[in-house]
């Protein structure tokens, strides 16, 4: 495969990725969320931390009040009278950050373990994959709860737990990809040229196994964000004063009948975010799948 050929097929793949409607819709959703997270402090209409007993569980006022634009309690207020819209905007940061860090950790360790297991084979493969099997033997959220229960509830431990839960799936996918790559001519020639194992794994194998790993990571972002929300909902993830959509839901549970707006909006935020990542991931998979089918 020459450089020119790689570039041409790369451009073709990129064009196909960008033309995929799922990638487009998912990308727009995620792009907007990233912008919201980056500029959150400038976007909040009110101070998300400001408490006011007089506005506890204030119903949503909407954007248009008595013939004028309204920026106060557009989506209502929570149990301490804080503005829900402002807290949702700030919460975007936590959700995306936890998802991103947990997914990155699982990507790095999953790729490393999967590549080593697939490339080296033999007992290394056996030991690594049996450990992965055991981690997959428990439902993901149960394993995450167990790890956080042991390490203690905190946002960092929640990230670590989510990452550990996601590693086995990543390792499996990368391993099967590596098993196919291992026998390819360019790897064999690298070996014949005297390339060391580490050089071959990092330079040739991992660089070629990234496509399925990225698809999995994109889909995994959604899973990680829901997991963080679930852990925080149970009181095991983000702790006050940090703002998380999952924590906002757990507070709303107490007043679900009298003030349903407290739970409604954080849930919509989580759903839209997960939807964005799953559209993007599905779209990327379609695009890459076709690349594989084309033999490019």
């Amino acid at each position: 495969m020459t450089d020119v050929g790689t570039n041409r097929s790369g451009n073709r793949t990129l064009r196909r990725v960008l033309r995929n409607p799922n990638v487009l819709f998912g990308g727009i959703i995620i792009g907007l969320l990233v912008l919201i997270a980056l500029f959150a402090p400038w976007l909040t209409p009110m101070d998300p931390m400001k408490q006011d007993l007089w506005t506890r569980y204030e119903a949503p006022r909407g954007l248009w009040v008595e013939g004028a634009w309204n920026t106060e309690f557009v989506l209502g207020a929570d149990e301490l009278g804080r503005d829900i819209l402002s807290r949702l905007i700030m919460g975007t940061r936590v959700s995306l950050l936890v998802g991103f860090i947990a997914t990155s950790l699982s990507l790095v360790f999953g790729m490393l373990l999967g590549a080593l297991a697939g490339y080296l084979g033999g007992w290394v493969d056996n030991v690594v994959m049996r450990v992965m099997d055991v981690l997959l033997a428990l439902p993901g959220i149960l394993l995450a709860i167990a790890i956080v229960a042991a390490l203690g509830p905190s946002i960092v431990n929640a990230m670590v737990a989510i990452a550990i839960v996601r590693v086995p799936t990543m390792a499996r996918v990368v391993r099967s990809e590596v098993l196919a790559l291992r026998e390819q001519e360019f790897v064999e020639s690298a070996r014949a040229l005297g390339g060391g194992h580490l050089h071959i794994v990092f330079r040739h194998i991992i660089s070629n196994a990234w496509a399925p790993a990225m698809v999995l990571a994109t889909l995994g972002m959604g899973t990680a964000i829901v997991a963080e929300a679930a852990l925080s909902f149970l009181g095991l993830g983000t702790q006050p004063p940090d703002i998380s959509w999952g924590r906002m839901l757990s507070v709303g549970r107490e007043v679900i009948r009298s003030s349903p707006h407290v739970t409604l909006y954080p849930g919509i935020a989580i759903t839209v975010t997960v939807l964005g990542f799953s559209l993007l991931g599905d779209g990327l998979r379609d695009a890459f799948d076709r690349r594989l089918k084309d033999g490019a």
Partner: protein
Amino acid sequence: MGMTGYVLRRFLALVVTLFGVSVIVFLLVHLSPGDPIRIMLGEQARPEDVQRLNDIYGFDQPLAVQYVKWLGAALQGDLGDSIRSGVPVIELVGQRLPATLELAVVSLLLAVGVGIPLGVLAAVTRNSPIDLASMVIALVGVAAPNFWVGLILLSTVAANVGWIPVFGRGPGVMESLGVLVTQFDARPLWDAARHLLLPAIAIGTSIMAIITRMTRSALLEVLGLDYVRTAKAKGVRRMRVVFRHALRNAILPVVTVIGVQFGFLLGGAIVTEVVFAWPGIGRLIVDGISQRDFPVVQGSILLLGVVFVLVNLVVDLSYSFINPRIRYD
């Protein structure tokens, strides 16, 4: 390799996996930063309580010795006692596990019962508004966290429909069925069903969405095959082609998904149980964590793990009955 060899190999793998699960569960207590006894009992614990717990766990012994003792006891059904209530953990889990399994099974039945017809409807009316609507439902259903769906159902349905209870569980489904058969009394079953309805919908929604998508795409694929076209050309009625000829072959990947998703259901049940105050094993674990009752947490996770692994085995083995073409290598 024949079926027997395959089953034997799977059992061997099962033993290895369960061994691994037991190591993870055992190590949970030791992952905790600091002295596990102090974490469980607090800093102001009385010396005799510390001693009692040390006797049970043997924290002063080497880790391997502790593990062997713990596993030996667990294999004989002794998972220790709850630190808070003193009740044997196996008893607590035994009371709660049926509630969780019941919820998971009913959720799955509901998901299959709605998902497959919806998927078929979407496939036969391809690109119609019905198809589009079912796909939107499927997309949102996968994305929405099940515990949030539960909260929304509580605030909308339970708050407005008088006969749907807000919290808790009715009588067990199996016992209620027994009453129905022996005494012709349907009231316990009705009571059980109305308690189950909302949590089952909450947990089943995402699986339902996945089943809908799978059924649709599998059916569309089969409907394009030659033998289906032949059947159509022969003048077989459309509905008969779909149900007799196509759906039978399209159902296999769907069954695979259903099997894979059962574990997900158990996981979803853990969080959703908290929403509905469902007295299952999920709430036992969450309460155990907040009370630092490690034997309860360990025992619950271990048994839930065992159930999960066994269910996966049964699902794998049952494929051979559904698909005789399957090969065991």
